């Protein structure tokens, strides 16, 4: 059983192990493209190195929110043998042996979540590792290792030479894809047969960098978004890129090929607005003209 929450540009999964009743929180992070600035500098574009600091600031907010949101309230769920509806609307199996709280990790260990999954393209440059990448990727790993007990990186197409950096931190797990119960995490450029295992209900991808253009009449603005929908009985969820340098691609304007030939226009749009999410319904039904104030007010 999996409950998925949106926290800004990230997803927070809460999985309950049916057998053990053990629950864990997994934070999912989209494409990062660290080191892009140095790559630009090398070609004579003097963009400043501010991306990393900004990312960490954003991560701080995200973890802060997770801590606030899932702290303590779980005490209500401890009564054995009752069907419990949590404040978050999640229906729990009354047989499961829920002991203390919703999050697996306790405050003692100091972790905010149990696992962190990076959906690939952690670094930007293909053939080599640049100075900024060494520094930033390691700094990011160290930061994440403080927040999560375990950090998994699924390999993206930009990550051809990520291994030497990963090896520096033995706690980091580098995988082609990663499965947790009924959820499979992958970058999104390649197909894996494991997706189609019966066990799997949910497929979570990065790579596509989904975004939507919304207009208030006077001007058009692009927003990062999640896309989700059902394809062959599996729920596919596209996570936006985390990097703020590019907002992403509006699929209505430019169709990105995917290994499964899924028409993402049939998917649902959830627009990222700060740490909040706005549901806009199906992408193909989404009118170009959306009342701007919606985004400003909410």
């Amino acid at each position, binding site marked *: 059983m999996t409950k998925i929450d949106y926290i800004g540009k990230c997803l927070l999964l809460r999985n309950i192990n049916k057998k053990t009743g053990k629950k864990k929180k997994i934070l999912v992070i989209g494409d990062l493209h660290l080191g*892009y*600035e140095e790559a*630009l*500098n090398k*070609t*004579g*574009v*003097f*963009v*400043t*190195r*501010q*991306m990393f600091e*900004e990312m960490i600031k954003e991560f701080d907010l995200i973890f802060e929110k997770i801590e606030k949101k899932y702290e303590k309230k779980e005490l209500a769920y401890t009564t054995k043998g009752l069907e419990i509806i949590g404040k978050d609307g999640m229906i729990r199996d009354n047989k499961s042996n829920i002991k203390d709280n919703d999050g697996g990790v306790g405050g003692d260990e100091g972790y905010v979540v149990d696992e962190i999954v990076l959906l690939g393209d952690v670094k930007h440059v293909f053939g080599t590792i640049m100075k900024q990448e060494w520094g930033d990727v390691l700094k990011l790993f160290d930061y994440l290792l403080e927040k999560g007990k375990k950090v998994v990186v699924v390999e993206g197409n930009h990550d051809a030479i990520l291994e030497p950096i990963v090896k520096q931190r033995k706690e980091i797990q580098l995988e082609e894809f990663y499965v947790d119960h009924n959820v499979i995490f992958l970058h999104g450029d390649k197909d894996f047969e494991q997706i189609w295992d019966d066990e799997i209900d949910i497929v979570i991808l990065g790579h596509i960098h989904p975004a939507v*253009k919304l*207009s*208030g*009449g*006077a*001007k*058009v*603005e692009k927003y990062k978004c999640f896309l989700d929908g059902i394809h062959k009985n599996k729920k596919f969820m596209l996570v936006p890129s985390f990097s*703020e*340098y*590019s907002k992403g691609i*509006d699929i*209505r*304007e*430019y*169709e990105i090929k995917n290994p499964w030939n899924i028409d993402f226009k049939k998917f649902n749009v959830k627009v990222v607005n700060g740490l909040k999410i706005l549901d806009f319904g199906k992408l193909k039904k989404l009118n*170009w*003209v959306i*009342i*701007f*104030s919606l985004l400003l007010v909410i």
Partner: protein
Amino acid sequence: MAKIEYIEASKAEEVKEILNSLVREWFFSRFEDFSNTQLCGVKNINDRKNILVSAPTGGTKTLTAFLGILNYLVGLSLKNELEDKIYAVYSSPLKALSNDIFVNLINPLKEIKGLAEKKGMKMQEIRVALRTGDTSAAERAKMAKKSPHILVSTPETLAIVLTSKKFVEKMRAVEFVIVDEIHAMTNKRGVYLSLTLERLCDISKIEPVRIGLSATISPLGEIARFLVGKDRDCLIADVKLMKKIEINLDYPGENILEVGLQENQKKLYHILDELIQEHKTTLIFTNTRAATERIVHYLDLHFPGKYAGLIGAHHSSMSKEKRFEIEDKLRKGELKVVVSSTSLELGIDIGSIDLVVLLRSPKSTSRALQRIGRAGHKLHDNPKGEFIVLDRDDLVECSILMKEMIEKKIDNAEIPKNCLDVLSQQIYGMAISRIWNIDEMLRTIRRSYCYETLSKEDFLSVISYLAGDYALEHRSVYAKIWYDEKTKQIGKKGKMARVIYMTNIGTIPAESFMTVEIGVGERKGQIVGKIDESFLERMKRGDVFVLGGQKYQFLFSRGMKAYVKADVSRNPTIPSWFSEMLPLSFDVALEIGRFRKLIKERIKDKKECIEFIEKHTYCKKHIAEEIYEYFKEQQGFSEIPDEKTIIVEKYKEDRKEVLIFHSLYGRRVNDALARAYAFAAARLKYRDIEMGISDNGFYLMGEQLEEDKIIKWVKAKDLKEILKEAIEKTEVLKRRFRHCAARSLMILRSYKGREKSVGKQQVHSGFLFVAVKKLSNEFPILREARREVFEDLMDIKNAEKVLKWLENGQVNIKIKKLPFVSPFGLNMALEGRSDLIKMEDRASFLKRMHELHLKAIGKDGF
């Protein structure tokens, strides 16, 4: 206070006296007498006075500038006193022109030398060197070794020379600087040059005399200040040659509404043919490249074989070789007719043209004069021009242009001020040359006319950008200069500085073509053609345009690709020639507004009114009658907008409401106004607004437009803020930012031996744009991009002025609710569709509308 003073011609005797006997003998062996320009210029240059010489094309400006200098150098060389230094620097914006001048300067020198030899006089060699972007490294090295006495260059190469150590040593005592074609420098290139000249003055121990050469331009006082900079005196010689302009205005066929009909199309080419046959060589200006090709094609079609080998096209999309070939043929007199868009307006001698045809309005008097000035290039010929117009708005516009030209009123040019991107590049160059004290640097910069009012904050913000202050610990990557606050000193940073500077210098943005690709649907990925980058700049999402006869809807652009949707049913919203179209100047626009008012006052009395139009614009009677009919229809159906009244017409079309603002202020002003009102309309209703901009006004189209609220919402004091908001996410700002980022060296076109394609630059500048905005919304280069959009592309100052007029009642807005579009509104409503509608259809449509208007007005008219 510096003195700017107009001067009269000196007496021929005085000028003769100045010349030493050898030069005098040479001069009179070649020319009968001094020209008026020479009488104005030569003596003053000899007296070492700064001078701006303005004379129509066909004058003898260049020789005027050089005669005094040659005279001085020949004098020195005869006395064997010629030093090994650069005495005079000549700058011209045109590379080809530099070549031209080179030849014209070398020849007189040769002839004078020959004369001296014949007389057994001993003379040192006077060396002239040409340095442009095309000069080879070997030639450059030679120049640095054996210094030329006269250096011929472009503004860019002059700046390069100033950072070259060896050359600078030869420039420690420059005595003369000639700025040719200064009328073509009222842009960032000119701003750049003005700073280069200040740098030259800083290097040179003596203040060089500045000589500016200009075609007809206004206001001369400002141009003179631009030439000399702050606190320097300047003389102005406004040489009005005895030339009388012969000029005529007409349209093909009997009735201007029927110009587009097939039989009248034929008439157009017959008129052109007649004119061409009556003259030796004819030059036709068309405003757009497509029209240039069309005219050439149809002339050939209507007169098979007649023009084979005798006709040529000349426009900026043609290859350099092809253009040179046409120019060469022109000089040799091998062509009977040449058709050009704008590219033949400037510069190089193109031989004996005796008629210039202006097809459609040239949009400003100075441009019209410049174009017509291409005829009668020979000294004593009169320039002869013929306006041929194809619609009613052009008819009115050109008759006013004709009036202004005949009355010698010229619209005012504007020079950009305080451009921070150009400043960045120049400060870098200055720091490469030597170490500066910061106050001294600012003083030098402020001596330029373009930076007189530069604030210390702006200056420091550029210094801070160049010193990499915003990059914190990564400063070393970004810093181009260092600034020590204690010692107040500034110097260059990095071993590569000089190379980076030299390979990335200049202000002309690299523009190119965008590939148009289908982004969605069945034909996804298919490439359908190419469009001009500057055309794309004007497009917003959802705009429909025509390419190769097909309609496409613009989606977005990425790098050098524009993605579109095919199979659109909507009407085109933006004509493909839009970006090529020159904007109507504000001054001429106001003059037309005044003209409208004068007609409106007389409209009831047909006879009096027609006589008035004839007298006022110097046009023929049937032209005046056409203009009268046009105005009468407008007055009957709606109301004539004029200098005191903006008429806003409201009608419905396909369930949408249309507001046509008849604000006759030129496209640059209307661009600002339209965007502000569209923004207001969108804000008030949160609906998509379609808008169209033209010289005569603009329209908004959308569901439920509340004109009163929209008009009230936009105030003069808020205009800048509204526009800042309105352009924030637009293509135009992003593109201008790319240009500014390249000029300020935030993006290097050429780095470590690699050239960056325009596409790469565009993609990269996108990221830079995001990053810079995060640093500060007021980052100097971002601010400069906005300034460029507001002041150079649009005309925010005059737009504010118009809004103020509205607020203080000097101009009123009147709303007219109409059943359909008015006669004056027709061209505006049609503009977007002009690519799609065939000329014939357009003509029959206009005719149909005309009948509808007449029906609505009723028989007697009012």
